[in-house]
């Protein structure tokens, strides 16, 4: 009975909750609220966010958060494979929109943020990661970008600030000959972005839990394969494992 419940809950998580959650991120990631008219503004993901999403997906695969080879297999029913591929698609677009929500819309800061995202994600491709560390790294990355865009930059360009703040904003604009020009959105945009990023990270955490719940099966497979080795090969494997530097 508990096995049935487990597989049912797992199916609910994989095929309903997670895709719905990531699609909600895809919906809200490009939503801004106009400061003047309070109207919705939908910002489609710029091309650079798709590139960032590809790098993020590669990182998730490398960090073991997405196990493509275990979720899409020839021995699975076609519907299961389609549902898993669909989930990967939703994660990809959620990632693109999560980047979209923390990237400034235009100007020099847009390219600066994009460059730092690219730099960080590219560097991370060559680091050793597990799912937990990867999650921490992604949370810090988005958290920092959120603080920079919605707290620091927004307050600098805010028309409601004091004269010192407005003077600093105007000076910055003047020094950079208007290249730092950024649209001003209503405060509620920051709340929407916060909620979007929280959902995105929550989705990734749920995904990590789903991966971890599979680990006993993976361990069993590994132990089974280990037992099929000869004595000399087992010794070599043990030495290799013990030689691995501790993180």
């Amino acid at each position: 009975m508990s096995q049935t419940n487990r597989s049912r809950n797992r199916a609910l998580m994989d095929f309903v909750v997670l895709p719905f959650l990531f699609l909600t991120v895809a919906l809200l990631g490009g939503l801004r609220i106009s400061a003047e008219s309070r109207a919705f503004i939908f910002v489609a993901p710029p091309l650079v966010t798709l590139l960032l999403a590809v790098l993020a997906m590669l990182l998730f695969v490398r960090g073991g958060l997405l196990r493509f080879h275990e979720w899409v297999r020839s021995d699975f029913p076609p519907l299961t494979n389609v549902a898993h591929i669909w989930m990967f698609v939703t994660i990809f677009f959620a990632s693109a929109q999560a980047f979209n929500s923390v990237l400034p819309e235009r100007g020099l800061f847009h390219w600066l943020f994009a460059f730092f995202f690219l730099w960080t994600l590219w560097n991370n491709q060559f680091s050793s990661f597990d799912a937990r560390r990867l999650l921490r790294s992604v949370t810090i990355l988005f958290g920092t970008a959120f603080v920079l865009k919605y707290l620091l930059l927004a307050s600098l360009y805010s028309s409601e600030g004091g004269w010192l703040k407005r003077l600093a904003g105007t000076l910055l604009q003047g020094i950079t000959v208007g290249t730092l020009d950024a649209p001003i959105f209503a405060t509620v945009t920051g709340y929407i972005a916060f909620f979007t990023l929280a959902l995105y990270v929550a989705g990734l955490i749920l995904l990590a839990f789903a991966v971890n719940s599979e680990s006993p099966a993976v361990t069993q497979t590994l132990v089974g394969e280990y037992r099929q080795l000869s004595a000399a090969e087992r010794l070599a494997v043990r030495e290799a494992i013990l030689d691995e530097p501790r993180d």
Partner: protein
Amino acid sequence: MQVRIIQLVGLGFTIAFAAFIIWIYVTEPRTFKEVTTGAEVAAGTYEVNQEEFNFALSLFRREQFRAARDEWQRADPAQRDARTQFYIAYAFYREGWGRVYFDQELFKQGVEAVNRAIALSSTSPLTIDDPDLQIHSAAELKVELDQGLERTWSDVNPLKVLRTRK
């Protein structure tokens, strides 16, 4: 079996949600009201508010063109009704028409509105049976507006003050 049902339902539900998101980003509604209007258009249940349409028509007949256009825009917020768009274009024409010169800005907006009307009635030529109008088809109205935007030597003809508004 239950897992299979969950897979099917989940896939169907999330694909529908994804289609909704794509539709939102394509149509870019600015308010919740525009979202519901757009949904009505997509579902084929959209209808012009007849009460507001009639009120606008009465304003139009009293030569309150700007107020009439505002009312028609409220009656047809999604700009999906060919008849309403024709009347809006006609209101631009009548307001922009002058014995000495035509208001180019109003005529341009009139052309946009009549083009919308023509596009919405692509299956058959749009004609309006209204005895108060002198132009009954969208094609004629478009020609009239286009001619008003053209610059020709006949513009300097002093006899043009004798022409009449349609």
